[in-house]
């Protein structure tokens, strides 16, 4: 599904990723953990194609194809989805209108016609129920005045609607109370299949109690310094990141 080889990336000349290697196969859930400033969100943005980040070296392969030269929307059309840590507000554009546009633009890129209104409505109903989203919520302006929980739930709702191959959840647990966390995690679990993959970026082990990863990677100073199974996350929860830093610096 996703293969990253020796990825180096910088922003405004400052190197942030310094040689990332990892591979995600269909059906897998990978967690990326690490202390603040280790490059977790940068990695997510680089995979999604944010222009400010310059890939200096290495390659990002999606199903064998190098996507480095593709614009963000083209990567989205190929099934890359990023759940933002800080989703932006778009005043006057309803949640429904936004997702409708996103779906139809993706269909257009694939040479398909707009999704018939009836089908769209059915899909919206289905997915909003899955995430326990109130119908009134769907007509509100995108992220405007949303609580932290509503913003994240909306991100996962969009993920459910777009059915991506590769979903990257960037700090989806931040700003969520325990109930919202459970709903969001349940949503993600229900969307998981043998054909898609999920990368969960998180600070804490908490989310991983709900979305159980197959692999855990620790990012530090722009490199993956340790990989393991879900037990590694527990270890980090107990001991913090200092022992990792010491190990690396030793």
């Amino acid at each position, binding site marked *: 599904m996703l293969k990253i080889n020796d990825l180096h990336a910088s922003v405004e000349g400052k190197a942030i990723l310094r040689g990332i290697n990892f591979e995600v196969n269909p059906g897998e859930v990978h967690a990326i953990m690490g202390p603040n400033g280790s490059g977790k969100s940068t990695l997510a943005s680089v995979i999604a194609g944010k222009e400010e980040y310059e890939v200096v070296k290495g390659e990002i392969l999606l199903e064998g194809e190098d996507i480095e*030269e*593709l614009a963000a*929307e083209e990567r989205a059309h190929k099934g890359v989805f990023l759940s933002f840590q800080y989703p932006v507000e778009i005043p006057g554009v309803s949640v429904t209108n936004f997702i409708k546009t996103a*779906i139809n633009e993706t269909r257009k890129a694939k040479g398909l016609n707009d999704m018939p209104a009836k089908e769209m409505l059915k899909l919206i109903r289905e997915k909003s129920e899955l995430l326990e989203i109130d119908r009134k919520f769907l007509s509100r302006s995108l992220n405007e005045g949303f609580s932290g929980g509503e913003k994240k739930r909306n991100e996962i709702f969009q993920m459910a609607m777009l059915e991506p191959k590769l979903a990257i959840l960037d700090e989806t647990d931040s700003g969520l109370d325990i109930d919202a966390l459970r709903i969001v995690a349940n949503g993600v679990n229900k969307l998981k299949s043998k054909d898609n993959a999920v990368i969960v970026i998180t600070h804490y082990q908490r989310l991983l109690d709900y979305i159980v990863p197959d692999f855990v990677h620790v990012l530090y100073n722009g490199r993956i310094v340790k990989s393991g199974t879900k037990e590694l996350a527990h270890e980090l929860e107990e001991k913090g990141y200092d022992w990792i830093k010491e190990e690396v610096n030793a």
Partner: protein
Amino acid sequence: MANKYTEDDLREELKTKEYEYGFYTDIESDTFPIGLNENIVRAISKKKDEPQWMTDWRLEAFRAWKEMLEPEWANVQYEKPDFQAIAYYSAPTSVDPNKTLDDVDPDLLAMYKKLGISVDEQKKMNNIAMDIVVDSVSVATTFKKTLGEKGIIFMSISEAIKEHPELVKKYLGTIVPQKDNFYAALNSAVFSDGSFCYIPKGVRCPMELSTYFRINQAGTGQFERTLVIADEGSYVSYLEGCTAPSRDENQLHAAVVELIALDDAEIKYSTVQNWYPGNTEGVGGVYNFVTKRGLCEKNAKISWTQVETGSAITWKYPSCILKGDNSVGEFYSIAVTNNYQQADTGTKMIHLGKNTKSTIISKGISAGKSQNSYRGLVQISSRADNARNFSQCDSLLMGNDCGAHTFPYIEVKNKSAQIEHEATTSKIGEDQIFYCNQRGIDTEKAIALIVNGFSKEVLNKLPMEFAVEARKLLEISLEGSVG
């Protein structure tokens, strides 16, 4: 970087994208020599076979105009037009006074088709009665018969002067007097055509009435005059659209619109203004100097909605005089400026009656090197007890070279007044664009989405058919403007 389509590419492509309505139709036309004097004014009046009172009214306006100076207070900069270098009358020669739709010049009809307003289709599909003014003369008024059955009069103002002189005489110039301002005086002297509409007492006009204006000939000005009278308890929704061919020289458009809403009447007046804005270097484009004003009697309501995307210079303040008690005035505006366009637009709400209410929602969108100003006056007179106003002025900026300005004037002479004013300025952010991109929406579409969202409150006020056109226009006007 083989197949990466950057914003620079987009901008490059859009540079070559032409003004969509910039075609010129080769129709034989009858154009007066350039210049303006009393003889030209008389000749216009004669050409239109007008009665003596109308000729005198024009001459009075012309004499006043000669003594007036062009206003300079607006936040716009341009080379003043040479009023002696303009032809004040241009008419397609194939207009017959006894015309029916079948007699309309096929070239003209083809032009309407290009504009997407085939008269036939309009008749059948849209339930819109339409008057089309090309250069100076009203060419085709559809649906006359259907409206006639309800007693509604909808015709060119030239016809109305002949057929309903009592109504024209009674109301013309009562809201915008001949000497109101420089351009209104000029218009009063030389107006060549325009639309006239009268809705009788208690009648609800069953369809949208619509006028389409187009400047075709080079070196001509367009000075149309619109007069809408809604008698007691009546209702009418009126639409107005404008286009002009692309030309290197600046063309002058100085229109006057007068609305009269008698007791309990309601007039909804919507404009989509898409005059040629000039090219990307700021060469050419229409000077749009327009005076629009409405009067509300008791319990009456006037609602102005405008989408202004065209013109090199816009100077326009559709206003309401809330004379009657409990009358209501509304102004909903979207003004878009791109490249070197300049707009100074807004409204005046004059509260004279008791319990009068006004609402102003203005959305300014500036891109390129353009300047976009909102200028509005809310005036509460000493007799206007319990007057209320709510104003909201939002500006959206795209890029770093454009400007947005707000000039709100508030004059209150009655302590019971309630006035609210809100203003915001925002900028389309890289983050918003990336968010949309990540969901599969390309940059161009993302801008359209964000701008439509920003303008939503005003777009929602437009009649359906117009809202679709307005949305498209917003997209066309702003393509490639984020950097």
